């Protein structure tokens, strides 16, 4: 029996579209949330210290527990479409990682930049927006991109809650594969698709790093 029929391929590619939508949306959202978390953790001192502690607790909680656990918890507690829940849960735990990445970028900025900004009359938010964050983000582009590949790969965990992403849809098609060559071909296709997607991202990172060195 033929496996790569038009129907099957379309079905798997629909899953791939969902995978990309989920990954892209949660990456963008978690960069936003992560940046806020990083700012709170780094600059909330004095009376606002407890906020920084709260953020630290948030980061440690998601750093020390598997993503699949949170995927299952969100499925169990929230109602809504699979894609919406997926974006919510991926944003939740990826934000914790993004916060640490952004914090690394913030810490790489020399003290003089802050003093210079202050001396020019920038307030805290003006300084962050115009001086500090742009430089911090330039430092962390490679880490951000490698986190993108991590998110894309981890969407395959969503198979556990039957969201119609690439891995799950391919697994459904896999149900039709009987002979070993069919199974191998199908897995080859799945591996290759993930590989091309992620490898393009790592190539982009490398190109960026070369440009950075050349500059």
């Amino acid at each position, binding site marked *: 029996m033929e496996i790569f029929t038009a129907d099957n391929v379309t079905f798997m590619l629909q899953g791939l579209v969902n995978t990309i939508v989920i990954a892209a949306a949660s990456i963008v959202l978690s960069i936003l949330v992560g940046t806020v978390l990083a700012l709170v953790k780094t600059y909330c001192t004095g009376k606002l210290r407890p906020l920084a502690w709260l953020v630290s607790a948030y980061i440690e909680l998601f750093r020390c527990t598997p993503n699949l*656990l949170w995927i299952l918890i969100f499925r169990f507690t929230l109602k809504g479409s699979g894609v919406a829940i997926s974006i919510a849960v991926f944003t939740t735990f990826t934000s914790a990682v993004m916060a640490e990445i952004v914090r690394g970028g913030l810490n790489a900025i020399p003290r003089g930049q802050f003093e210079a900004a202050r001396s020019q009359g920038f307030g805290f938010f003006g300084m962050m927006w115009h001086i500090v964050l742009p430089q911090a983000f330039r430092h962390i582009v490679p880490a951000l991109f490698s986190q993108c590949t991590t998110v894309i790969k981890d969407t395959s965990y969503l198979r556990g809650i039957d969201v119609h992403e690439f891995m799950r849809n391919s697994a459904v098609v896999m149900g039709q594969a009987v002979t070993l060559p069919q*199974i191998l071909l199908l897995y080859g296709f799945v591996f290759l698709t993930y590989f091309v997607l992620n490898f393009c991202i790592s190539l982009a990172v490398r190109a960026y790093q070369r440009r950075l060195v050349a500059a």
Partner: protein
Amino acid sequence: MNGLFSARRWSVTLADSAALWQGFFFTLQVSLAGLAVALVVGTIFGTFSTTRSRILRGIARVYVEIYQNTPVVVQVFFMYTAGPQVIKAITGAQTITRIAPFVLGVVGVGLYHAAYVAEVIRTGIEAIPRGQMEAAQSQGFSRVQAYRYIILPQTLRIILPPLANQALNLVKNTSVLALIAGGDLMYQADVIVSQTGYLQGYILCCVMYFIICFPLAMLVSWLERRAKEPGGRAGGARGEKDAGGAGAAPGTTKGEVA
């Protein structure tokens, strides 16, 4: 969220917690064995990519790229589905033998993280100046001896923090076994929650993962702090990058998360 503090729900879940502890120790065993595989295989490929042989470097490159750019879930499912058939085709056996979840977990997670370990080892070795190797060889060390006595000890200081981080991620990724009914902690929690219908099973499971992972996270922070202390090679040279500016907390992570 109501019922989160219900004593009855907690007591029902706690009554089943024996299965959870069973999963806890299973996850622990898979993690330890997987870590051993990751370290051994990763060190081999990491050393490969620093040798002068083009073939060895190529092999290491291909391994790392394939494993880092495809999901561990797909890798484990591949072994789960196709593995027994491949074994059957190779050995010519009459019946299909299933691969035990323990083996799937150890090999799956181990080989996946080996790719990351290899990259850590490679960067660690490359961070040591070439002069060290030349000096060692001029003193009569063979290449292997130089690696063993000169290069590796210095490398350790650089690579231990990211290695511990890999161990942490490895423990988390063993949860992939839950997707193939592997009997690990995540799977047991899922079974309990679907039997009782209460969230409490997941919360207990969360605590148990935390018991394993939080010490590892602390270890990562400690190793990072230690690697930064003066006396290490990373010490003096880059004063302007001193993280002290802006009142930042010490121990910045580089954001290298698998």
